[in-house]
């Protein structure tokens, strides 16, 4: 109960202050809408928001899954050879610095309007944290265990599969957590350009000076990002139960 109350307290306090400022005309609602206006908009246009929410969630999830598959595969390949790492890792870093908002219009030319561009945008933005964290995880296997595998003449593939990959799982999930938030941002940017989802709701509301709708859609997209982070966290805890148990056991006096 306390874990939920702690983050809710500042939200409620902030909302109360904002409501007071708008209602007492200190801040005009066409500059900053009152929380009650946002809530009313969420109820009045609920079907539009729901459709937008599910469209964005679908695109962000597909983008995230694709970046997970591509990112971990790339990291596995790069970890097999120092030469490959030196040759391709700089490009992975370069990928991270691509400003998605600048290349999104080009994505439309390649993939057309609608979900394909949105998914591509989500994929590009969320790929790098998965590559970087997976690489880090794969290189984090304990040296003494690596020596043990070497003594037993384990093959490169066996070492990777039985030692490096399990050791990398916490880092891979950490990358996924970062990527899940970014996947939503990528999807929203893609929707600005290619249409659909919460991005389109924000874009249309902006042109009609409906700041209550803009904030409502932004709130929902933040909620989606948070939901994905919690989902990844849940999966990681289930999969790494034994790892966490070992870790907590180690911490016990």
């Amino acid at each position, binding site marked *: 109960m306390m874990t939920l109350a702690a983050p809710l307290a500042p939200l409620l306090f902030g909302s109360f202050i904002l409501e007071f400022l708008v209602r007492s005309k200190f801040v005009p609602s066409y500059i900053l809408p009152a929380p009650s206006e946002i809530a009313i908009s969420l109820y009045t246009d609920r079907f539009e928001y729901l459709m937008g929410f599910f469209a964005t969630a679908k695109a962000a999830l597909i983008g995230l899954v694709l970046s997970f598959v591509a990112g971990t595969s790339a990291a596995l390949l790069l970890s097999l050879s120092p030469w490959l790492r030196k040759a391709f890792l700089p490009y992975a870093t370069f990928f991270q610095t691509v400003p998605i908002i600048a290349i999104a*219009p080009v994505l439309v030319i390649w993939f057309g309007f609608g979900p394909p561009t949105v998914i591509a945008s989500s994929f590009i933005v969320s790929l790098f944290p998965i590559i970087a964290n997976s690489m880090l995880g794969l290189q984090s296997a304990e040296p003494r265990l690596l020596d043990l595998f070497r003594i037993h003449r384990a093959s490169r593939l066996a070492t990777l599969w039985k030692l490096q990959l399990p050791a990398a799982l916490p880092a891979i999930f950490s990358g996924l957590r970062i990527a899940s938030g970014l996947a939503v941002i990528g999807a929203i940017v893609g929707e600005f350009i290619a249409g659909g989802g919460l991005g389109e709701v924000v*874009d249309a509301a*902006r042109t009609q*000076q409906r700041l209550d709708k803009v904030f409502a859609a932004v709130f929902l997209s933040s909620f989606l990002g948070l939901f994905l982070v919690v989902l990844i966290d849940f999966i990681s805890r289930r999969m790494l139960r034994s790892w966490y148990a070992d870790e907590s056991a180690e911490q016990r006096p």
Partner: protein
Amino acid sequence: MIRYARLLSLRFSFFILFAGLFGLAPTISLASKSVSKVPAKPVSKPLEKVRLALNWKPEPQFGGFYAAQITQLDKKNGVELEIVPGGAGTPVVQMVAAGQFDFGIASGDEVVVSRARGSDVVALFAVFQTNPQGLLTHAERSFESLADVFKSNGTIAMQKGLPYAVFLQRKYASGMKASIVPYLGGISNFLARKDHSQQCFVTSEPFLANRQGAKIRTFLVAESGFNPYTTVVITRRSVLLERPELVKNVVMAVRAGWLHYLNRPTEINQKMNELNPSIALETFEQMSTAQKPLIEGKTISKTPLGSMTSARWSELSVQLQEMKIIENKPDSATLFVEL
């Protein structure tokens, strides 16, 4: 001696007279001519600096504002204009409403929507009497009307939520086959696909498309019955009440600038082209020629340039209410002032 002295005095007087007539007179005449060339200062008060926020980059649609600045017609009217270019989606009307700028450019529908949301923005000067917003289509598709564009397969790129887009979608909803897709700015998608039509300013993108070799046909949205004033100079009512003289000077400067630009756009186009070299100077010339009838409108010579009527603001408010973009209509008489 006295006689001699008198004679000298008389000769000196004649000398002065002759010198005056033949020598000094031309000098005086020249001086008087040169004085008449210097324009009289109509305003003795110090110049007030005014920032005008645009909603796009320097283009002929803003030519009159730049003309006022470049030819110093602003200073002759007691103000010093600083023109601040905008970008895609710059929310000028909200920035003016919030007090970040005292003067800005917006479209008529933005003014009505902003007022309906509670701001106190007010229109001062409407550049376009006929809305230049239109649809740009490929000539190969042989569309004859806006209805044809909507009732044929293909895509139409329009900024979702904009009143004119809502209006067209409602008007041509029955039998509509085209898909509405987001407008990305520019014409690259239009050039890439023959089944693609897009929103445009009929005074702008068609010339850029022609330059790229595309065969085009445009349709004015105004012909469908939605014709808000466009490129409207706005301020806040509070500015109007507190500094009416300043607001009047701005309108006079802007009007003088536009009158100059409509008659002699070449020099101004060159200067704007330096500020926005992405558009060729030749295209600047074509744009300024094409927009002239839309600015002068049918009311030319009857009312001052930039004038507005309560009837048109009222019609626009009704249309926006019918489209459910606004709930309550603002009083149309308070949406603008004639200065």
